[in-house]
């Protein structure tokens, strides 16, 4: 290990690996990847189901297989990786402080930094679900780690709260391992997971999905013994007399992912309250010059294929920064309007040399609708959708030639067609 690198990448998951390859192939070859676990690959290592890579490789891979393709390429290029090493912080001068059993607490000087820390799961505590606090309550990802990495079953009789993709995948996984999944409850009127996962993980196994339902009590002293679920009204308040009781020993939570940005925050990188990731330009540079962000640390993606795409963009931009020097941004803002939860990037350079792809999520399920990017009275781009749901990330392309027409804030909104 040296004490300075052109590029330090925080996180060796799918985002970090793809960013490293892209930066390298675009000319920035002096790279250090810092990974806190004992191997790279991130959360893919515990995702042994298939369906990864359909977009990128046109084949269905397991998580570890998908990761392996990137690991192989990283190794071929001899990119340096430190595992079991946790970044403790970095500053605006791009001095990164980290700790490892081998090197202790050390610093490295970087020219550019890519934030690729991934995300974490929201826990039961964030929802204040009443009841006791026995063993048997896990986030879906923790249960996945126990089953797929450690080889142990966290329980046999399961109720799942939240229909996020990991929850759906775990409903199937636990069933295949002999557990009985009694119910998946979703407080919203729609699932936040992918349609294909609802079909392949619940429907195919006869696992009931209760929309507009939440858990209103968890019971048990040592170990979970049961839960009560209730239907909720339009304000997500439990409706009396709709209670259903299940005997179970396990409750899994799959109630949302939150980009992990404690490092970015303490380094003073401005974050978006909507995405909880950094505010970025279209090239994935944050408002802190030379610090880039990508993957689930930036915005929570549906598919790892899209994480890889975004990471490649960040890697390429970081290489450009290292080789050509800092970009002077002259940008307009991009904001979410009606029926849109968030839009990314939040800032777009007027002179961007490529088409800009906007990533966004809609705020509800809409049928037969039009998505519009508007600046003042000018419509910059539109797209019609037969159906748009919050569970699937949407995109809209703004062609480069249109960028010149934008002389104020670009607002993205969704209208339902008459």
């Amino acid at each position: 290990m040296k004490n300075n690198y052109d590029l330090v990448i925080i996180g060796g998951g799918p985002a970090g690996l793809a960013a490293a390859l892209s930066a390298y192939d675009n000319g920035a070859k002096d790279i250090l990847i810092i990974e806190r676990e004992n191997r790279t690959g991130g959360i893919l290592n515990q995702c042994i189901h298939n369906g990864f890579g359909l977009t990128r490789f046109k084949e269905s891979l397991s998580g570890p297989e998908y990761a392996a393709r990137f690991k192989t390429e990283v190794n071929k290029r001899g990119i340096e990786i430190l595992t079991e090493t946790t970044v403790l912080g970095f500053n605006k001068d791009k001095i990164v402080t980290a700790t490892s059993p081998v090197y202790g607490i050390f610093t490295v000087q970087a020219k550019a930094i890519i934030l690729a820390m991934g995300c974490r799961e929201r826990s039961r505590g964030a929802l204040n679900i009443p009841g006791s606090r026995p063993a048997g309550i896990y986030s879906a990802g923790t249960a996945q780690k126990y089953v797929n990495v450690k080889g142990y079953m966290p329980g046999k009789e399961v109720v799942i709260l939240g229909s996020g993709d990991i929850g759906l995948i775990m409903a199937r996984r636990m069933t295949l391992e002999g557990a009985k999944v009694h119910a998946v409850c979703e407080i919203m009127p729609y699932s936040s997971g992918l349609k294909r996962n609802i079909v392949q993980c619940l429907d195919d196994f006869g696992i009931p999905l209760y929309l507009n339902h939440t858990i209103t009590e968890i019971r048990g002293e040592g170990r979970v013994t049961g839960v009560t679920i209730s239907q909720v009204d339009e304000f997500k308040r439990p409706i009396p007399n709709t209670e259903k009781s299940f005997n179970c020993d396990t409750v899994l939570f799959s109630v949302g992912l939150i980009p992990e940005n404690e490092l970015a925050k303490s380094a003073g990188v401005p974050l978006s309250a909507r995405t909880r990731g950094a505010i970025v330009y279209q090239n994935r540079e944050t408002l802190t010059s030379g610090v880039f962000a990508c993957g689930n640390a930036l915005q929570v993606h549906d598919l790892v294929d899209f994480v890889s795409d975004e990471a490649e963009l960040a890697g390429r931009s970081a290489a450009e920064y290292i080789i050509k020097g800092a970009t002077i941004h002259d940008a307009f803002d991009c904001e979410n309007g009606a029926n849109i939860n968030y839009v990314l990037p939040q800032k777009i350079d007027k002179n961007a040399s490529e088409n800009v792809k906007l990533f966004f999520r809609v705020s509800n399920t809409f049928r037969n609708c039009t998505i519009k990017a508007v600046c003042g009275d000018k419509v910059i781009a539109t797209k019609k959708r037969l159906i748009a749901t919050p569970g699937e990330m949407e995109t809209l392309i703004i062609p480069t030639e249109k960028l010149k027409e934008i002389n104020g804030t670009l607002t993205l909104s969704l209208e339902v067609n008459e």
Partner: protein
Amino acid sequence: MFDIAVIGGGVIGGTILRELTKYQLNVCVLESCDDVSMGQSKANSGIVHAGYDAKPNSLKAKFNVLGNKMMSAYASELGVKYKNNGSLVLAFSEEDLTVLEELKTRGETNGVERLSIIDRAELNRLEPNVSDNAVGALYAPTGGIICPYELTIASIGNAMDNGAKLYCNFEVASAKKLENGYEIISTDGNKVSAKIVINCAGINSGKVASIFGDDTLNIKGRKGEYILLDRESGDFVSHTLFCTPSKAGKGILVTQTVDGNILLGPTATEVENPAPVTTAQGLAFVVDKVKSMCKNPPLFNSITSFAGVRAYSDKGDFIIEKSAIAENLINVAGIESPGLTSAPAIAKFVAEEIVAKMTSLVKNEKFNGKRTPDYFFKNLSIEEKNELIKKDSTYGKIICRCEGITEGEIIRAVRENPKAMTIDAVKRRTRAGMGRCQGGFCQPHVAEIIAREHNIAYEKVQKGGKNSTLLVGKVK
């Protein structure tokens, strides 16, 4: 045969046990759960009260004010975090202000120093996030905060370092009177004999006293529900904010914790069943009250909610006395708020004023009251940390990313007195799993360390509490 057996490993039992190790006595503590600090010492507000609440001349008033004065030095000797953040009792009406004047007078009678009534402007300066409806406050600069289980664990750990014995999973089932004491038998049939028994069994102290033949204690439970906010919101308030007390009690408080979180609660409901469960109504009550006390409380940053059951006696005051009925039994019961504050003073009193009259106390010259805190690593300089990592590389590896806890710290908690045997026990000592992801990432790693260190199978590791295994077996 032990000279003294303390029943109950809470903060009262723990501080008494430690006090007794200052003398040449053979002492032990019998704890019904799988770890110490599992009753009300696990889940309370963690306030070092100034002492204006208690009725003058009550035991509560006496020990509160004494304990408050002792706490800083007591905590510092044990390496327990303590913060003298000051308390504010908020008034929302002219009537409230009258009550505050009464509280101030009462506090002064009790010997509380530097109490003052502050106006809206001063309140705003001290706590800008207090509701605009607050008209003033009673300011008690001697109020403070401490972590109740940290204090309990440190007290018992230090007592053990000084020779005391801890018996966990020892639920007292019966007692046999011996010529010079008692043989105490657990529900599992384990036996411990002691000349003197000190009953600090919290919610179970009435039951325990009657096992020894004393039916005079009438102990009931009052449940309190809490919500804990992420450290990210830790600067929302700096003082402990109370409402003006009413007939319904002290009401909800909003406080920083010594670990930098924000704690909201508690409710106060009389309960028959001491199970510490939260309810939708209880948590909603906390939320409503907090919203009436503060502007825009960051409730979105909730990381957990929990409940604790506090024991109180029908006497309305602490019971700290030699049993009039059962020989060689001392009851320390009904220790509700301000019990945590009072603990060091109660412990001293029990040793010097009660035990001293029952047996001769000879000073233990070897007693060392200092304990290296479980969080010592955080306080080291980078150079010191690197020195340690060179000797023990586990201190270089972060296990709990939210709280920044290293493997070395977890191993230490698993090995040091009182040894952490469960996930929750590690959490209470090190804070691994105490952060915003609530153990989602670190729990499988912590379980591995516990299994390895205690040489038990991975699937046998418990979360904490009876029959609380994390896993049910291997996959197919």
